């Protein structure tokens, strides 16, 4: 019966697929991209998220951008110099035009930074910037409130917008530059940047179409793609199927369960990189008295086998972590290793007087991070070995975050990517003493508080000497490790896949901003 069914199936398939073979060939190179979601808006200041930054790199150019090995590459800024502790001067690229035809000058940079400081999502990370002034058309001067070592990191977020295009009022009398979260602002549907691609058509949730900008300034860019069609395919299996069947040319992310399948296919290629998003567990000291004892926290850290999770559960698609900072970050301390040791964990529990263990509640999302619910289950099983009984509840992300904000469980899972690609961002959000007024420790669900560590972080944030700053941040990682402030699990790897003729390797990076303007599609 199955034989007959397959036979029939292949006959039907053969007849149905015939007309598809005759697809017309054109000289234009179109890159069909499928991501798990499409950008929520065309206003790049409306939301600070990976998707919006990916869009920014298509339609705009930053002042500087990251290379694959965490160096700064000049884009719209060609040169920069530190004038004094709080002043930096940047020289801007000459002869750059916006999609609208307006020339790009220093006033656009000033206008953009001022708008960033008004954006609810960006204003916090641009807070250290006191002022930006245009010295002349080709030079801008940044002044920071205090000495600030991360100004170039911030510059990767400054995608100059066309100030003339975005100024004035619409027919309905609304300000064209306004940033509206929930509503139809002018900037959310109109765009003029300096980037390699113009938006030609967009249907929210269905697709975005881009066309190469004919007057793009970067004539050295090897990129040869004329059109991009970006389609959101949220279902993992369908996204992979679309690539394997040749319906799309480039997909991200590739789900871990399909890695082998994609790798085995001869017509497509898979690229993976160790990522920068740390997955960790917070142990809430306000809810569980035992977590105030560092020995109990250490016992938890010893009881969790990061290598096993990364190897077996994540199928090697994760890098086991013993700290927050991934390799390449200033704070990454190469001496810290995952420390799984069950005997040690049991002994520490005994010393702390919890030999018989205790019961705790645990919550984790089930659709936010790769295999998040399974990771939580694995951790619960590992903790059972030191007699800790875990009552685990997993939730969809939409329901998880309100619970997280309410600190609703004793053990909570979170993943964090540093917006500034710098270690200090981790400490600011995840380990600083929580203070609702300043927003410090906003995601510190462990309620861990060590003023001495916070002091070193604060000093490091004023230290402009790279070498010294790196030493300070590494000592912070060591202190957090010794104190077992949290249970680190792993850095989630990144994976992309594309048809063989699409040369994606050179344009990918751990920030997950594929520089599609520079991508080359080999033609026969």
């Amino acid at each position, binding site marked *: *019966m199955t034989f007959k*069914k*397959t*036979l029939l*199936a*292949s006959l*039907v*398939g*053969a007849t*149905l*697929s015939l*007309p*598809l*073979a005759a697809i017309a060939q054109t000289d234009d190179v179109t890159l069909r991209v499928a991501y798990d979601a499409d950008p*929520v*808006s065309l206003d790049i200041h409306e*939301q*600070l*998220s990976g998707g919006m930054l990916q869009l920014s790199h298509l339609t705009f150019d930053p002042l500087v951008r990251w290379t694959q090995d965490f160096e700064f590459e000049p884009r719209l800024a060609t040169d920069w110099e530190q004038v004094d502790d709080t002043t930096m001067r940047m020289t801007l690229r000459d002869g750059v035009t916006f999609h609208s035809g307006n020339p790009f000058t220093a006033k656009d940079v000033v206008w953009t930074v001022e708008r960033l400081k008004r954006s*609810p*999502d960006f*204003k*916090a*990370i641009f807070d250290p910037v006191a002022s930006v002034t245009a010295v002349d058309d080709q030079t801008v001067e940044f002044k920071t409130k205090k000495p600030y070592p991360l100004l170039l990191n911030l510059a990767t977020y400054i995608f100059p917008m066309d100030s003339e295009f975005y100024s004035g009022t619409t027919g309905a009398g609304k300000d064209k530059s306004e940033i509206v*979260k*929930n*509503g*139809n602002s002018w900037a*959310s549907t109109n765009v003029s940047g300096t980037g390699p691609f113009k938006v030609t058509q967009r249907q*929210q*949730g*269905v697709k975005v179409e881009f066309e190469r900008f004919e007057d793009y300034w970067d004539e050295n860019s090897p990129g040869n793609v004329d059109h991009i*069609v970006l389609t959101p*395919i*949220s*279902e993992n*299996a*369908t996204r992979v*199927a*679309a690539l*394997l*069947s*040749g*319906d799309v040319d480039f997909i991200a992310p590739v789900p871990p369960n399909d890695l082998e399948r994609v790798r085995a296919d001869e017509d497509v290629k898979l690229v993976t990189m160790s990522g920068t998003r740390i997955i960790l567990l917070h142990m809430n000291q306000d809810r569980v008295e035992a977590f105030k004892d560092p020995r109990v926290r250490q016992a938890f850290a010893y009881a969790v086998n990061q290598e096993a999770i990364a190897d077996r559960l994540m199928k090697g698609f994760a890098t086991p972590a013993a700290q927050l900072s991934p390799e390449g970050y200033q704070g990454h301390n190469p001496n810290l290793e995952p420390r799984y040791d069950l005997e040690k964990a049991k002994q520490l529990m005994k010393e702390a007087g919890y030999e018989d263990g205790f019961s705790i509640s645990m919550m984790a999302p089930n*659709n936010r991070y790769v295999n998040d619910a399974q990771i939580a289950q694995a951790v619960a099983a590992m903790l059972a070995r030191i007699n800790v009984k875990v009552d685990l509840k997993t939730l*969809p*992300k*939409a*329901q998880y*975050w*309100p619970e997280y*904000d309410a600190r609703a469980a004793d053990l909570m899972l979170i993943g*964090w990517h540093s*917006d500034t690609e710098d270690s200090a*961002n981790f400490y600011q*959000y995840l380990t600083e003493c929580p203070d*609702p007024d300043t*927003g410090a420790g*906003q*995601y510190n669900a462990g309620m861990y508080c060590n003023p001495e560590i916070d002091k070193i972080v604060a000093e490091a944030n004023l230290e402009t000497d790279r070498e010294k700053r790196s030493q300070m941040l590494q000592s912070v990682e060591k202190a957090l490790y010794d104190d077992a402030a949290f249970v680190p699990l792993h850095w989630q790897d990144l994976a992309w896949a594309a048809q063989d003729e699409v040369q994606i390797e050179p344009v990918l990076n751990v920030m997950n901003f594929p520089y599609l303007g520079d991508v080359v599609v080999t033609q026969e």
Partner: protein
Amino acid sequence: MIAFLIKRLFHALLVMFVISVISFAIQDNLGDPIQQMVGQSVPESERAALREELGLNDPFLVQYLRFAKNAVQFDFGYSYFFNEPTTDVILRHLPATLELVAAATFLIVTLSVPIGVYSAIKPRSPLSRLFMGVSIVGISIPVFLTAIVLIQIFSIGISVTPFPETTGWGSWLNGLLSTEGGMPAYGRGNDLTHVVGTWYTNFASWDSLTYLVLPAISLASIMLPLFIRLIRAEMLEVLQSDYVKFAKAKGISMRRIYFLHALKNTMLPVITVGGVQIGTLVAFTILTETVFQWPGMGLMFLDAIERSDIPLIITYLMVVGLIFVITNTLVDLIYGLVNPTVKLTGKPA
């Protein structure tokens, strides 16, 4: 008739009212929409301001009254994600779903009637047994599995190599069992034809029709076995009835008995069940649409849940309630046409 329709209109309004109250009551459990709108590092003060601006801090009754006041003027609020009125969003997604359901219904009707009738007339023939066997398998396979298997076979393609490639027959069999793939695996394609308003159709060109094939087959696969079995069972029962025996005795040709006299009575319960099931199809194409990323209402609804897009969720649920009332009404009307002894208003004839 008019009285019947007016009564149904009130039903619809009542259903929509109840749905809206229930969805409003549970909206706090649907997640925090603010979380979806802002980046993770946005401070709590900014979130609070946005929450206040959207009126999410108001008590339940205030929020509901505000919603109800607008709703009676057909304003169901703005989708948080699409930044458009929720009714516009739904109207834009509705045609895709309706076309998918129409295609699936077409498959169901054209296949289930002949197969069902055939296996009732010849219950012992090997072909009937095959149909019944396949339909048992079909009814037990979940739709997303059917969908993924279809994608693997027809979109990606499979290569079969168990037979010796060197021999002529082995190579022939391998070739026969392998598939090329090439069918579109997702979405509606780029070649839609505009009909009217928000309606773009897949039916107008061969190329866009190919996009419809796999989703329609998977969607039909849930209902098809059910209909085959239903028609077969009804037909078997009718064939036992006295009037069929009498017709046979009278010497009327078997073809006329089967397809004119018996089939008519077979279809009565099928229409009742069928109408309600098609209504269910419209409302719950969620799984099929998700696997094929078919941009219809089901996929839209699932995304809305993921994004905590509460206004859209509520409007969708109300629209689904409305669709159920409408299909039930239509079923009753058709039933009245097919069986004149049934009176819609319930009064004796």
